[in-house]
């Protein structure tokens, strides 16, 4: 062989041996405020965790960049009749350990996600029966029609039956487990990435899965995830180029990141709605100087509170422009008719008048509960509200606490111990029904005990409940949207709640990286491309 031939052969060999596609050669380093605690996809229903799991697991369906439901492990589906859905599964899909994906895995996952210890019980309705038709077809039988059956299935990830059985991980890892679970430290999904190493709370390394069933849009060979809890350190790591993507960027640092030249902040409205609630149940407020009656039972007082709040000022000063004032208790991208609503104007004079009419010319005192480490600038928003209410004579004592103490006090297990509070809510199903049922439904419904569990103020209007029940089973989208609109209008007329705004997403992204931002704040790096 001549030298030339050897060279040629070597070149050819190298091309054959290493199909070096420049399209998959980058390492992306990502830092988030929160941890990836457990790899078990049924343990914690929380945005950051679900997004992490979405890199290694797939659901039957997925949501695209605009949150539209698209096929994933199910190639297509149809409703044979309102209570029977048929899913056609994708063929040739393999789990990371090589096991083939079949109908058995879907049926197994449907059982596991609804077993004790799962935090995703509501993702798959309890009455849904999964029946195998053949290896690649599954029917779902329902007791009653459910037009939003699959709306939460994008975060219900499919697990491998055989792998779970072999590793004693058939049950989801419950919070009270006394032995470590295999599935909490290992994964075996069908997704775009394979977890190479996982040290909880320290570092997680993902490698691209070369055998993924779909067409990859990223050019990454590796993702290195590190949780960085300290805001200043996380921003510093982005600015010094040690990480490529961070979430979130504290809003006071946005300007600095943008002017750094190496990174920019991607912002957009989030799906979470921040709102104020008032105790309308008790005959006397727990924390107020008004004795013998509850001022919030008077609609005029609620209207006065609503009109006393200058939402534009909160947007400008507290949120530095990064919020979208909201007329509704749901974010506009989740409800097409949201455009028909406008938020009522700030009107302190009318508020003062209403308060006088209601019998409180000199206002009254009330305590406000507020978290201080849960939402963007939550305590600062509450402070602003305190100042605005002071102008109409209401003296608010602010009790801003860390979320661990705050939620222990105000949620149902704590006995709804609040008179006036700030809360944020993202409907897990991305649908209005969740808001109408969990937040705006009447509490203590004997037939439906979970109704209104997030309704800490106890607002109640039976007309809303009737509509909500109809909305659940209505399959005609146009009709359904009209009913939702009607329900929201009742709540607005009742001044049941005071919606404030949707906070903004703020992701710090290196100039080298292109990344799509989805409004549900899931950082999905499988849509990222990074240049040299």
């Amino acid at each position, binding site marked *: 062989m001549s030298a030339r031939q050897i060279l040629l052969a070597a070149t050819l060999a190298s091309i054959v041996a290493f199909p070096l596609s420049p399209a998959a050669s980058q390492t992306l380093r990502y*830092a988030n405020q929160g*941890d990836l*605690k*457990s790899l*078990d996809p049924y*343990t*914690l*229903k*929380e945005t950051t965790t679900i997004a992490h799991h979405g890199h290694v697991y797939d659901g039957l369906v997925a949501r695209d960049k605009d949150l539209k439901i698209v096929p994933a492990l199910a190639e297509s589906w149809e409703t044979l009749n309102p209570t029977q859905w048929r899913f056609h599964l994708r063929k040739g899909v393999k789990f990371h350990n090589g096991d083939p994906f079949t109908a058995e895995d879907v049926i197994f996952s449907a059982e596991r996600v609804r077993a*004790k210890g799962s*935090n995703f*019980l*509501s993702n798959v309705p309890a009455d849904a029966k999964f029946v195998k038709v053949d290896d690649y077809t599954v029917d779902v039988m329902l007791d009653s029609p459910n037009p939003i059956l699959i709306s939460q299935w994008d975060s219900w990830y499919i697990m491998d039956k055989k792998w779970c059985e072999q590793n004693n991980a058939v049950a989801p*890892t419950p*919070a*009270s*487990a*006394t*032995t*470590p*679970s295999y599935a*909490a*430290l290992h994964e075996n999904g069908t997704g775009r990435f394979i977890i190479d190493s996982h*040290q*909880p*709370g*320290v*570092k997680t390394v993902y490698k691209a899965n070369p055998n993924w069933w779909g067409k990859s849009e990223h050019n990454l060979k590796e993702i290195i995830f*590190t*949780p*960085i*809890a*300290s805001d*200043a*350190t*996380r921003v*510093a*790591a982005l*600015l*010094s*180029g*040690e990480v490529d993507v961070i979430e979130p960027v504290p809003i006071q640092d946005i300007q600095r990141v943008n002017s750094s030249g190496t990174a920019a902040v991607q912002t957009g409205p989030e799906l979470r709605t921040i709102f104020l609630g008032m105790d309308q149940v008790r005959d006397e407020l727990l924390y107020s100087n008004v004795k013998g009656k509850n001022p919030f039972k008077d609609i005029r007082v609620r209207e006065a509170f609503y009109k006393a709040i200058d939402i534009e000022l909160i947007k400008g000063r507290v949120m530095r422009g990064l919020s979208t004032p909201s007329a509704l208790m749901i974010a506009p991208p989740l409800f097409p008719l949201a455009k028909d609503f406008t938020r009522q104007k700030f009107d302190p004079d009318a508020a003062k008048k209403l308060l006088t009419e209601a019998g409180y010319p000199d206002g009254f005192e009330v305590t406000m509960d507020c978290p201080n480490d849960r939402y963007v600038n939550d305590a600062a928003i509450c402070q602003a509200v305190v100042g605005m209410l002071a102008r109409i004579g209401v003296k608010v004592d602010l009790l801003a606490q*860390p*979320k*661990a*103490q705050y*939620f*222990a006090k105000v*949620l*149902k*297990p*704590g006995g709804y111990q609040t008179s006036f509070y700030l809360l944020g*809510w993202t409907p*897990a199903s991305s649908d209005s029904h*969740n808001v109408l049922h*969990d937040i705006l439904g009447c509490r203590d419904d004997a037939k439906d*005990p*979970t109704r209104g*569990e*997030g309704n800490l103020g106890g607002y109640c209007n039976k007309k809303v409940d009737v509509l909500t029940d109809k909305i659940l089973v209505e399959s005609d989208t146009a009709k359904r949207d009209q009913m939702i609109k009607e329900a929201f209008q009742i709540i607005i007329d009742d001044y049941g709640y005071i919606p404030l705004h949707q906070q903004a997403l703020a992701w710090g992204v290196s100039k080298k990286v292109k990344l799509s931002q989805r409004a549900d704040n899931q950082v999905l790096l499988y849509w990222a491309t990074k240049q040299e």
Partner: protein
Amino acid sequence: MLAFTLRRAIQALGVMIAVGIIAFAMFRFAGDPVNQIVSIDTAAAERAAIRKSLGLDDPVIVQFGRYFADAAQFKFGVSYQFRQPVTNLLMERMPATLELAICATIFAMVFGILMGVYSALHRDGLLAKAFQTISLIGISLPTFLIGILLIYLFSVTLGWLPSFGRGEVVRIGWWTTGLLTLSGLKALILPSITLGLFQMTLIMRLVRAEMLEVLRTDYIRFARARGLTTRAIHFGHALRNTLVPVITVAGLQFGSVIAFAIITETVFQWPGMGLLFVQAVHNVDIPIMAAYLMMVSLIFVAINFVVDILYTVVDPRLRSTVSRPA
């Protein structure tokens, strides 16, 4: 001697029990762990089931008994957030904290002694005054601020050193070390300075004061009169006599270096036990909090115990009064 040791051991046990009781009392006010385990839209019935399975519904006295029985056997159960045994998590994080604490202590000792000796010998020198200024900064600035300042100077502006984490680590058995890789060593510099700065200024001031004291004593004068070289007097006689209290203080401070690593670890996202503890407090992860508090108090108690014993060994006067009951 035996009686003394025994008495000290009983006292140490008393301290541990007290810490256990205080820690348990604190957990009652940390918030509801169930809120941190599940998402906010979790149904109340589901929450109640978790509460029950964690034993949070039992009477306080039952919970306390269970906690104490487990703590006595160093059984701390499974972390609420990570679903892993706490002992494993702590063991995994311990090398990071110990390496950081040791590096910080070495840094503090070396620079503290050098600067202290220098400023004692050249009391009015410009450099000595600069050292005094630095020591004032080290004493008065809070640790997290120093950490953030260092990050901005050396990571963001100059780009020399990493701003967070441990870099590449090498695994030797169950121990992980960052001392064997370049990135690991680089990652150690800023956190070690941040953590060690306070100790450094402390040691520097101590050395300076002791040294000035010693230099005034008679034996130094006699050494001078004998015609010994200045070097021999300063380093052979003066410094050696200065070091006894310095080593005592540094040893006692080692416990607090480990305990106060919490702040440094948070700023630098250093994957040690302190960071684990801070995250546990945020998430009301009681098993981790309990284990960490017990462990830190054990370290303190153990160091003090050893120091007490060593004192009696070193100082015969102490031993004689103890072992011969009057």
